[in-house]
């Protein structure tokens, strides 16, 4: 096995562990932190099923963002839906044979990359063009967009410009999953693409990408509006009440 293969194999196990363990840690942290008061942003659903619907609309359609700003909504939604299709397409590198849905999504996933990168560029442009957004942007906000654009573009290079040895790549990725390690093709765009994706996985649990798990724990969105009917009290508040 070449040292290149060794490095990337190690990198991906490391990145996967950081991503999974890191996000799991955050989820445990969020779920263990009590929400002592009922603070749904009203009008809010009065049933659990209603809250599930509200959350689904937020996650799938970005409902609140749509109310807020159509430009951010268009670019943000393009990016996220594009990314979702691209990710689904990439599932094929980890299974043999492929599920039908993964096979079905292949052509859409290919062109969704344009939508994804266009959305990112739109969001990035706002960081320069809108004075309010320029004011709140930090270096990490720009770098995050740069990272995602670079991942998108390096991936598109391989699809549309200079193909990599896709059979060897699939052998490598399947090998990671089955612990039967195989050599990695050494094309430039592929190595850049894989390195950046690994970096993204590693910073996920310590960056603003935590908005993904965070939204499910947002008390203004995930609480049922029923405070007159049910009494909820946080453990630390209940302990103080008994004193």
């Amino acid at each position, binding site marked *: 096995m070449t040292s290149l293969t060794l490095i990337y194999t190690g990198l991906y196990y490391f990145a996967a562990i950081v991503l999974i363990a890191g996000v799991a840690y*955050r989820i445990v*942290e*969020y779920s263990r*932190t*009590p*929400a*002592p*008061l*009922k*603070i749904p*942003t*009203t*009008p*809010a659903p*009065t049933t659990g099923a209603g809250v599930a619907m509200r959350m689904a609309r*937020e996650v799938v359609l*970005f409902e*609140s*963002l749509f*109310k*807020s*700003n159509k430009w*951010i909504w268009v670019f*943000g939604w393009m990016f996220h839906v594009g990314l979702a299709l691209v990710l689904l397409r990439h599932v094929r590198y980890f299974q043999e044979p492929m599920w039908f849905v993964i096979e079905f999504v292949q052509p859409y996933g290919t062109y969704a990359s344009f939508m994804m990168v266009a959305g990112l560029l739109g969001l990035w442009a*706002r960081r320069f063009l809108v*004075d*309010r*957004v320029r*004011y*709140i*942007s*930090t*270096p*990490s906000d720009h*770098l995050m967009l740069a990272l995602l654009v670079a991942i998108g573009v390096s991936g598109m290079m391989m699809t549309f410009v200079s193909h990599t040895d896709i059979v060897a790549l699939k052998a490598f990725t399947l090998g990671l999953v089955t612990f039967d390690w195989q050599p990695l093709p050494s094309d430039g765009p592929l190595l850049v693409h894989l390195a950046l994706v690994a970096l993204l996985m590693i910073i996920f649990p*310590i*960056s*603003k990408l*935590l*908005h993904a798990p*965070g*939204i499910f*724990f*947002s*008390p*203004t*969105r995930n609480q049922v*509006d029923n*405070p*007159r*009917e*049910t*009494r*909820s*009290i*946080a453990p*630390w*508040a*209940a302990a103080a*009440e008994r004193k």
Partner: protein
Amino acid sequence: MAVPEFEVPKLTEYTEVPKINPGVMAHVKTFPAAEASQTFLGYPWALTDDWQERAIDKMGDLLGKYRSLRVFMDACVHCGACTDKCHYFLGTADPKNMPVARQDLMRQVYRRYFTIPGKIAPWLVGAKDLSKEILDDWYNYYHQCSECRRCSVYCPYGIDTAEVTMAGREILNTIGMGQKYSSEILTKVQKIGNNLGLPGPALEDTLLGLEEDIELDTGVPVKIPLDVKGSEILLVTPSADFFSEPHVESLIGYAKVFHAAGASWTLSTHASEAGNFGLFNGNYETMRKVAMRIRDAALELGVKRIIVGECGHAWRVAYSFWNTLTGIGFGGNDPFSIELQQQLDHRYKQPMHICEYTWDLIQKGTLKFDKSLNDDRVITFHDSCNVARGSRMGEEPGDQFTIPRNVIMAVANNFHDMAPETIGEGTFCCGGGGGVLTDDLIEVRVKGALPRMNAFNNVVQADGVNFLALICAICKAQFTKVIPYYGFDRSMVGGVHQLVSTAIKLD
């Protein structure tokens, strides 16, 4: 009216999003709290020597106790959706009044002390050591937020800046940087029973005087009972209703409704305040102590129902938090809440808003009105932020918008809503909520009222509106003070139950 020392914004047809003007509101400092009230509340009253350590410890404590704060510190992606949503930003152009920037005042410190990137590479993620300059920013800009939650409607993750402001003020209090206005009110309500510091005998006198006025005016002996044990209903209302104008007109309205319904009701000296400034400062214990007065009064008087008068944040605390804090509500299965809940009448919502009560009676046909008595008024209704986005009325989501309007339309003929994006869940705060209703913040209050004033001006011009109907004591006090700066007469401001009072038929 004294000449203002600042420029009053010009009214425009639409509220335009201003170009940012950094630091333009940095000079505004609310008066600091003094020793007596801070000591009573258990806070230091001057900056402590160990302020930095103390502040970070308190932040860690709050991050562990409040999921909202914990998630909101992490989840923001700086998308900018909230940047043009705050009435204080729209009215002042100061970028630190953009919700995300207000949050970032705390987030920069959170990142430095509680996150890996902020510890390793602070410059990368905008993390900063907690400095005196940052404390000053907190003090200035956490007192230019009315905790109205408009930003939380538009944030894709539901980040509520009010939660951050509350945490910021609690940390400031902990290190000796409290605000005079809230500190004094929280002391008065606990020592005397209400925010205005009106002692029991004075309250009794005031109510007797009001009874005489009503009888002179209508010829009907409408009573305003105080501390009557065994009454069915306890009315808890903001103390401003007892003698501020136009608040008192609504109190007269409640009394007439109870009279017409033949209800057995009482006010309480011990609980002569619905408002709860504990909410504004993010201190659970203080908020609970203030709310406990109502539970204590309910148990003492043996009432079956608790009704809350016209007050926005009071209704938020009552509707959303009383069950948790005091057991006023249903569904409790612990001895503390059962003690009270078995006394309350389960056929009714507990607590109930006065508008719910009146609307209920209107639907049953119990109340009779002569709507023409309100014909000199062309009315619009301002949704109070805490009612709109922090609570509900009735059975369905959004009934907090329809019920007050239904009441108005049942007692008056001329009603026009303001532009849809300025009412309902997108309503603009009056500019005086959340502990900002003090003369030392008048510039913030006047400028923050701009979006509402623009929307109001439009219906004044287009529909001849001459009455701004409110269901909040803070809104009433704020608009009475601020509306003249924009060229309107303060007599245009009044309560929903003031309209009820005008039209109701008594016998």
